[in-house]
């Protein structure tokens, strides 16, 4: 199985935080691909599905979907690039056969749509309060 290697770095310091996050290391559930809506566009995103998808370095298997979306939105919403409202800025480097090099910053811009933590906050405010 050809699985890309993603190396997550903190772009500000250029420091590698997580040496690598192999999709194949995400427990025993390997990533699949599905389309997602990122900033209003339909994008192919890769996800690891299931409870067994926590990677050895502690990143969730669904890390990849966010990565793909971030990469896309970095291109689609350049004007919206700003210091992250929901997490650290990311640099993403993919292995040699399918390299993606991008400095992406999860954006809170309206043009990119709510997602991540901000979407969770919105959901909570629109949800019945349960005991």
């Amino acid at each position: 199985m050809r699985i890309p290697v993603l190396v997550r770095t903190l772009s500000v310091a250029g420091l590698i935080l997580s040496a690598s996050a192999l999709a194949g290391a995400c427990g025993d559930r390997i990533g699949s691909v599905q389309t997602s809506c990122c900033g209003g566009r339909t994008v192919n995103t890769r996800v690891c599905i299931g409870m067994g998808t926590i990677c050895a370095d502690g990143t969730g298997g669904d890390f990849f979907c966010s990565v793909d979306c971030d990469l896309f939105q970095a291109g689609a919403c350049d004007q919206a690039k700003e210091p992250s409202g929901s997490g650290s800025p990311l640099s993403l480097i993919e292995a040699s056969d399918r390299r993606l090099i991008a400095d992406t910053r999860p954006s809170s811009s309206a043009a990119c749509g709510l997602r991540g933590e901000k979407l969770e906050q919105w959901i909570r405010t629109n949800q019945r309060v349960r005991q």
Partner: protein
Amino acid sequence: MWFVALVLLLGPAFQHTPPAHPKKSSDLPRTTVLVASSAKRLGIPFFNFYGQAKQDAGGNVYFHAATRRYSDSSIIRIPYGDSEPKAYSLPEKPARETAFIAFDVAPSGRVYVLSENADHRSIVFEFGGDGDISSRTELGIPPSARVASMSVFEATGNFFVLGYYDSSAPDDLRGKTFMALTSPDGKVFRDLKNSRAIDLNTLGEKPLTLCSYVGEDGNLYVLASDEILVLTASGDFMRRIKLRKPDDAALTTKLIVSQGLAAVWLQSDSAVGKAVELTLETVDIGTGRVVGVYSASDELGDNAVTFSRSEGFVFLRNDGGKVSLLTAHIR
């Protein structure tokens, strides 16, 4: 005997290998560019979502919200009318102990989330209209069967699950497609085995072309890469509708059947992390004839979320940070 016949009938349905050289069907209708016939801007902030949207009989649209974790079972309902949006989430304990796999929405608007626990057991949570969980059902499917799509028969409470056996399955099942019907209590009463397999080695490269839909006629429609299978609610094979696509390499990602017309979502075979090019096709499920092939105007965008024969396609747009629903008639 029925089993052997079913194997033979369903066998070719899940061949996953596209032709080496994409070719175009020449006898299809010309592609029509859809334009907006109406637009409705909602006071709802635009949000991202995972996978394909679902719809109920009232035209409300449901999304798996793109929260921080794909495994969160958070569903957002966007109203067709003027009511408020609604969010469905699991309570803290089941949310912590399960991971989202798939969801479906019954015509009445009841939401069903299929999740799995740490033991890879499949569990269906049903949400009532008030947003509370009204039932929890563990499906009796093997842990090595990876579900990609679930459909609910609201009239009977039965579930249809569609997926494949993963690498942990026995040799004779590994990579084979998996289809089963369960009763409301989760017991499998029909295992629709077939002999075909998907390529486990390409799972991380392309979207799975496995999708199912329960029609208004009560029949089950299963979308494969090159055809639609029609089954009765009890799993009996009815017929096969061969798909003819503008581009044979296009991936089939979604199916809705409305008043005798099947709408098929086709997408370009693009790389992960890239935007996809959307083509829509309508097929007469009685004759198999392709009725229309459509692309969307720039105004509509590429997020076609629902379809009905009477209304056409509904697109979701990001209109200055707010959700906008645009309807495009197909006539």
